[in-house]
């Protein structure tokens, strides 16, 4: 995998010769063909100095090739990022995508099998105490001051309320370089550097629901009997279920992200009753399943992830990521550094994280409909029209393209849910891990078996 990436990058650098930096020839020892190396070297001759001046990153990795092993959930483990990182920094990223359960386990049990962990905040809450990650010194994070405050103080604007669940700011900091105890307020030691986050809601087929959808409880409408679905990943599904139950007035939670046993019982009993009444068509577990259910018309309203909505729409089928009155269920992920990293590798990890926040990746993620942690740098890497569409919620002036260059929205379209502030400002709860996790999972399995 890394070998391939290396070769591809080498070839590209040789061909395009543009934006070349010294970094590109770094993998010389790591198996680039002789021809690629020569061409790369030629490109380097002309561009090395200029390239560095533009990106402003040191070239130490060119002499001393560094590989960082990163693993995490599929959303942000993108090959494009590995390639660009190789090109800009000369750091080879080996990416492994796993599901969130496997990720949690690996952080705890195989501490030496990774250098960078790309995990969600609720996973961080679960695994940081295992001591396999080291907190990062924010003094070394170049754009720390510009990180969206959701991840530091927890407040998007000074007036906002911190949402329920595992809000990122509650697990973002520890008290010292060796501490495992989460600090209530920002300190110098950060557990995860945020990379990617979003606000999730229900997806609908506007052509088939036949009425405006305003609340989470609309999924219970008898008109949609046998045409709804929720996702069957217990830790996330239970949150969607909680949003539905609260909206329908079944129960009012003290904290949806940390239910009591009684609250879990009420929620699951209600789900079982709803399931037996035939309200659900199916439960999905993977991205593609949710896309197929929606695209085929088997369901008309269901839990969904934003790229799945885009995927349905790209088939020419209308699909809306419907904003709801009760707000969104948000999630976020970040990069953590393994405990065993030190010396040059640790420096490279910081280098990589600083690069991650420096704009290119941010723009890439924003263009997928996610949000990036440092908005100011991402803005510089997007066209004003793209920025206005994705972040300000304004109608697109031109066609909006995906990072791969496919038309996602035609001119005139408006993003579902509006601007960044409208969406991230209306978060009702964050994905979380509960104290009664094991009990919840057992009851959830009962729901699925019922």
């Amino acid at each position, binding site marked *: 995998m890394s070998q391939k990436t290396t070769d591809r990058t080498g070839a590209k650098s040789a061909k395009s010769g543009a934006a070349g930096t010294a970094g590109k020839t770094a993998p010389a020892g790591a198996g680039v063909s002789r021809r690629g190396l020569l061409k790369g070297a030629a490109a380097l001759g002309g561009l090395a100095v200029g390239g560095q001046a533009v990106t402003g990153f040191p070239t130490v990795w060119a002499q001393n090739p560094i590989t960082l092993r990163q693993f995490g959930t599929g959303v942000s483990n993108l090959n494009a990022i590995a390639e660009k990182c190789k090109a800009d920094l000369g750091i080879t990223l080996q990416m492994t995508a796993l599901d969130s*359960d496997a990720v949690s386990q690996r952080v*705890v049990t195989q501490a030496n099998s990774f250098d960078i962990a790309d995990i969600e905040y609720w996973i961080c809450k679960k695994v940081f105490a295992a001591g396999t990650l080291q907190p990062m010194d924010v003094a070394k994070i170049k754009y720390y001051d510009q990180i969206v405050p959701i991840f530091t103080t927890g407040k998007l604007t000074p007036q906002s309320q911190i949402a329920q669940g595992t809000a990122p700011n509650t697990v973002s900091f520890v008290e010292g370089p060796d501490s495992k105890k989460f600090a209530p307020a920002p300190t110098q030691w950060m557990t995860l550097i945020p990379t990617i986050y979003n606000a999730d809601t229900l997806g609908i087929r506007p052509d088939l629901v036949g009425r405006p959808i305003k609340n989470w409880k609309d999924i219970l409408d008898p008109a949609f009997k046998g045409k709804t679905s929720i996702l069957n990943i217990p830790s996330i599904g239970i949150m969607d279920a909680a949003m539905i139950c609260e909206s329908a007035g079944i129960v009012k939670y003290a904290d949806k992200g940390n239910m009591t046993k009684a609250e879990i019982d009420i929620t699951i009993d209600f789900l079982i009753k709803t399931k037996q009444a035939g309200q659900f068509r199916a439960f999905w*577990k993977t991205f593609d399943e949710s896309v197929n259910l929606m695209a*085929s018309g*088997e369901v008309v309203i269901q839990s969904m992830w934003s790229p799945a909505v885009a995927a349905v729409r790209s088939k020419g089928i209308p699909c809306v990521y419907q904003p709801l009155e009760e707000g969104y269920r948000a999630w976020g992920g970040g990069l953590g550094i393994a405990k065993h990293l030190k010396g040059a590798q640790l420096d490279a990890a910081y280098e990589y994280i600083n690069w991650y926040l420096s704009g290119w990746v941010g723009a890439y993620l924003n263009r997928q409909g996610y949000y990036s942690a440092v908005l100011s740098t991402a803005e510089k890497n997007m066209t004003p029209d793209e920025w206005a569409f994705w972040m300000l919620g304004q109608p697109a002036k031109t066609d909006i393209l995906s990072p791969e260059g496919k038309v996602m929205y035609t001119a005139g379209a408006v993003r579902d849910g509006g601007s960044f502030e409208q969406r991230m400002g209306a978060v009702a709860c964050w994905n979380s891990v509960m104290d009664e*996790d094991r009990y919840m999972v057992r009851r959830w*399995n009962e729901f*699925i*078996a*019922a």
Partner: protein
Amino acid sequence: MTLYRIAPYLQAAPLTLILAAFLVLPIATIVMVSFWDYDSIQIFPDFVFTNYEETITSPVTWRTYLNTLKYTVIVWAVTLLVGFWVAYYLAFHIRSATMQMVLFLVCTIPFLTSNIIRMISWIPFLGRNGLLNQSLMTMGLIDQPLEFLLFSDFAVVLAMVHLYTLFMVTPIFNTLMRIDRALIEAARDAGANAFQILTNVILPLAKPGIAIGSIFVVTLVMGDFITVRFMSGGQSASVGLMMANQIALLQYPAAAANAVILLVLVLLLVAAILRIVNIRKEL
């Protein structure tokens, strides 16, 4: 001299080693882990019975096992019925051996694609806006799409029958082919009608094949999780699916305990089949 004595052991050694490494050892590990303890992210070596206790005392387990047994019985009955008559037709109604082989190979054609693909291809066919519903509606037979076709027990059983019937056809066909045709002629000469020949001659002689086919189908259905998950749309549970969920949640000891229970249950079923039919005649 000594070589003569150890030669049989040497000959048996490769298979013994393979079975030890790939069958006995993994099962021993599963049994061992089933007694371990776990929390949400780790498992610890221990010797506790909580995994078995939690599994056996939970009503969900019982319901899931019953559901799995229900699938097993239905699928077994349908595959036996279909499988027997397909084999019967091939063995007794097709005269030329070449034609028999050709038709038998035709039966195996679906196996040229992966069973997951064969299963998933039912989904667009049976769906609300699928081919079947659309055709029925165009023909004017129904006004509303039939909802029970997909994401239901019906869909699960249908897909399993489709996937597993051949496992019934093959062994039954094999036993039927070995029946001495003279026996059937003798029965006819003795005045037996077609039904009597079937029940008194063919069925008793086909028993070993039926038993082998039944073992295949029963073990396959009992252990299935992917068909149940896809065809029921995640709405039904099976033991295999329950284990898959536990593994996904890192509850390996619980999954191992479940696996041991399932293994015991399936072995009991197989033992029961073998009690009724002596399949060694077949081998």
